[in-house]
């Protein structure tokens, strides 16, 4: 028995009227072949979630009747390899390609494909398609690390908000008054030591988000010099336009890769008129979420107005 196709269902119930079918649970058949590889896949999923590297988990959610694919089948796609399969056929390479592209974008999304592997996007295309397979593509990876350089008022607030968002927070300062466990009433790795030494030692990956909010631009410059070329997912530095421009100039003159410097978010944060350390933290973490998830960084209401204008 095939599962009801989620997207087809999606379209059917868009109007909310007539009310949804009473059947609220759709059972799927058991697939012995899936059970056979599930131990390895389950272990790999766990490793990806706890240690990385990131993996795009691709699970068949459903298919229209007549498509020969097992709902529930799961395939893990890494940047450089795959584990498990979707039974071969033209669909599989298309899903692998999509999944690989999804990894750096942290995608979690159910996508529709034709059985021959063409992506089907948008309501009209889905309605017109004869056959559809739906795949939940979900990037599984360890919690992102938020590395806060500077334990002052802003660093304190930035770390707190990061912890609230589920990030692994690390805070570095060279002053013991600003880098001690008691100062941070949330889960954080507090590092007290020389900025350059500690930063060089700190592991940085594409899943590390670095916020430079130390006591002065000299320290920020030193810290940026240490981390700029190490492939962090985000580097942001606080400061006025003038100060930050000077810092970037210094580093460029010293031969730091200008492509990397161009990617530094400075002055840091979204323009929401933030004043207090807590508001600045919202502005900074807002920018980090924007980088991670993508988005328009506008009030949602603006989109509604835009749509209304287009329709007119």
């Amino acid at each position, binding site marked *: 028995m095939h599962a009801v196709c989620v997207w087809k269902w999606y379209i059917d119930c868009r109007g909310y009227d007539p009310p949804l079918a009473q059947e609220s649970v759709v059972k799927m058949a058991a697939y012995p072949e899936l059970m056979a590889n599930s131990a390895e896949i389950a272990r790999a999923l*766990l490793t990806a979630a706890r240690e990385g590297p990131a993996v795009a988990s691709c699970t068949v959610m459903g298919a229209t009747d007549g498509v020969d694919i097992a709902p529930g089948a799961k395939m893990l796609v890494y940047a450089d390899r795959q584990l498990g399969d979707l039974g071969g056929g033209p669909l599989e390479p298309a899903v692998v390609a999509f999944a690989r592209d999804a990894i750096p974008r942290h995608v979690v999304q159910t996508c529709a494909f034709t059985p021959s592997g063409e992506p089907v996007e948008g309501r009209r295309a889905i309605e017109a398609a004869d056959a559809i397979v739906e795949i939940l593509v979900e990037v599984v990876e360890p919690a992102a690390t938020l590395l806060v350089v500077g334990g002052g008022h802003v660093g304190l607030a930035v770390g707190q908000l990061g912890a609230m968002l589920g990030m692994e927070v690390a805070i570095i300062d060279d002053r013991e008054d600003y880098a001690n466990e008691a100062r941070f009433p949330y889960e954080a790795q507090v590092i007290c030591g020389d900025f350059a030494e500690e930063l060089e030692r700190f592991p940085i990956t594409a899943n590390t988000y670095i916020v430079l909010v130390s006591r002065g631009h000299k320290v920020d410059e030193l810290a940026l010099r240490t981390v700029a070329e190490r492939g962090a997912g985000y580097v942001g530095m606080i400061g006025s336009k003038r100060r930050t421009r000077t810092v970037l100039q210094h580093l460029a003159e010293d031969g730091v890769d200008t492509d990397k410097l161009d990617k530094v978010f400075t002055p840091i944060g979204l323009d929401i008129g933030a004043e207090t350390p807590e508001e600045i933290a919202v502005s900074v973490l807002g920018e980090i979420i924007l980088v991670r998830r993508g988005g328009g960084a506008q009030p949602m209401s603006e989109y509604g107005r835009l749509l209304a204008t287009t329709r007119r």
Partner: protein
Amino acid sequence: MPHDEVFEAMSTAFDGGAPVALATVAQTLGSTPRKTGAKMLVREDGSFVGTIGGGCGEAEVWQEAMDTLEDGAARMVTVDLTEPVDGEDKICGGIMRIFVEKLEA
């Protein structure tokens, strides 16, 4: 962002040789308490960690997870939060589809 406690519990279960049922929000329509990717893990003894939307249809998903642990079959559960219950409006007002699967290692 992450599902730390869910994967922590999965690891503990696997280390003890026990299977788990994993419920993942696969798709949402309208206003729902959790978005795509939210997870709840259910153990054989019925205990669970994580949430796919606190109260809003969670009991139904938990029951399906228990059945999945029993027969091994994956399931798709639709939770409709648009219908008022007992004349009261539900807080949410959307529809979620939740995929439930058994995992063991």
